[in-house]
């Protein structure tokens, strides 16, 4: 048995201050909620448009991230190729890049005058800026790295002998991946998707920069909160509360899962 010594008073004081710093804003938010008008605020046209749009965009982001992120994670985890660390850095860069920079970069690449955006518009008449597709793109750019690194870490821990066992039983590569690899990494797949979804839901900087702020088309929850703060504070508070609730649910349901997946 180790002896539990009392921590020094000064450290306790600092720790308490830190907790207060983190907790007070949340308390402030909760204190200002007008519970009687909450339902009305959440169902106001601005709010429902933002809620619906955020749901659609964030879920599309998860789907696209799964479709494109998992293959990339697999390549990164299984193949040693020149420039792999560069690719990995590129895939995780949006996690540390200020989202507004991501938005500017997207704008310069896919905007009406961007290097890809111009031919896209000229030839196909497709415009990504100020469109819901653009909002999804911005969210995907920022959120997909969470899926990639979570899934790559999980793929690295899969014992290849299980996949080999499946191969000797007659399963081709796709079947091995689908029936052995994917089920094995399912927990990380879920955790990565949840993190990606949460990040997409909260995306602000890249979305507003690249896709703009059009109600019903690109004005997602965080944008609506920001705008509402100017005119209709109660709606802003109600939407913030909704986002806070979603974050808490994700945090509680994942617990140490994600960190565990990355560490192992």
């Amino acid at each position, binding site marked *: 048995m180790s002896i539990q010594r009392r921590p020094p008073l000064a450290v306790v004081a600092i720790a308490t201050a830190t907790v207060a710093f983190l907790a007070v804003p949340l308390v402030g938010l909760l204190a200002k909620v007008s519970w009687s008008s909450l339902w009305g605020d959440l169902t106001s046209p601005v709010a429902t448009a933002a809620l619906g749009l955020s749901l659609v965009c964030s879920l599309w982001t998860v789907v696209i991230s799964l479709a494109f992120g998992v293959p990339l994670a697999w390549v990164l985890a299984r193949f040693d190729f020149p420039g792999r660390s560069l690719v990995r850095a590129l895939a995780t860069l949006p996690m540390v890049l200020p989202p507004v920079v991501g938005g500017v970069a997207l704008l310069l690449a896919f905007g009406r005058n961007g290097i890809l955006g111009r031919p896209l518009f000229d030839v196909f008449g497709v415009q990504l800026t100020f469109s819901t597709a653009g909002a999804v793109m911005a969210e995907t750019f920022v959120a997909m790295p969470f899926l990639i690194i979570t899934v790559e870490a999980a793929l690295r821990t899969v014992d290849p002998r299980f996949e080999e066992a*499946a191969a*000797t*039983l*007659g*399963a081709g590569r796709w*079947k091995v991946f689908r029936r052995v690899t994917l089920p094995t990494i399912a927990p990380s797949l879920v955790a990565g998707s949840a993190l990606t979804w949460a990040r997409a839901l909260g995306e602000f900087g890249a979305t507003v920069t690249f896709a703009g702020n059009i109600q019903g088309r690109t004005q997602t929850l965080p944008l609506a909160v920001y705008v509402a703060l100017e005119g209709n504070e109660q709606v802003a508070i109600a939407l913030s509360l909704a986002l806070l609730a979603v974050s808490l649910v994700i945090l509680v349901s994942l617990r140490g899962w994600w960190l565990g997946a990355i560490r192992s």
Partner: protein
Amino acid sequence: MSLDAEVSVTLGPFELNVALRVDDGEVVAVLGPNGGGKTTLVRALAGLHSLRAGHVTLDGVVLDDPSARIFVAPEHRQCGVVFQDYCLFAHLTTEENVAFGPRSRGVSKADAHHRALEWLDTMGLAGTAHLRPDRLSGGQAQRVALARALATGPRLLLLDEPMAALDAGARASVRHQLGRHLEGFAGPCVVVTHDPLDAAALADRLLIVEDGHVVQSGTLAEVTARPRTAYVAELMGLNLLRGRARGTHLVLANGTTLQTSVDANGDVFAVIAPRDVALYSSPPGGSPRNTWSTRVDEIHRLGTRARVLLGAPVPIAAEVTSEAVSDLGLGEGAPVWASVKATQIDVYGA
């Protein structure tokens, strides 16, 4: 000749060069120390590792031959593998594990599960069909792994250390059951193990692989009687000496001469069973020609018997009763006289 293979594999600094032929219905045990290349051999036969040179031919069909640029992928070889630690799929039930192979080979879902249940029944596992592998005992997991490998109807069966994951208490009975199931397999079968008891119980023939090479092969009786490396001699509990024979004289590397009853010349191995080494507290009289004085290096007690390791000039083990150890006052470093009858030294060409 059903399985015919010459396996040359390079793994970094490690080289494996093993040739083996296994008949239909024959079980060959590949026995050797860990790190000797046994698992690599299984992987090469299964197609999980490609050959650098040589070939793998099953029923006359070439599965791997680098010189002819032939390589059949593992999923297209009809080769059942029981992996070390079994590698059962943790997310599937026992039944689904066994049905995995037939499903992968295009059998309909209903038929595959029917077949899986039949195999589980054959293995005495009918009650475990809906359990996940983590709920199985070691012996059950081994049988599920075997059922999974056999359910695809393989032409070749490979087992990599099938007994290694088992508790000591369960070994004897599991070994016996495994032996019974292997007898029922019609094709060639290769069992990799580091335990001579497994090899003896399961296999018709032994292949001793050390450091990537076959150092000895033959039936259990042949290998036991005439070991050719210290590893094999130790496995069989025999004393192996190497020296030069001149008629019935055996000269060891350190110049010590032993009298044998075998007329031989040149480089030879000599085997002495530990129970044929007699120990005395004073110089013995009588017939034994080979008598020398030495000291005790170590004593290993095994119940009522004891193995006494002797020092120079002839570093061999003697097996005596525990009473003899106390009667002779033996302890580490104690002086002792040893003797071996000339007729109890078997000599054969190196």
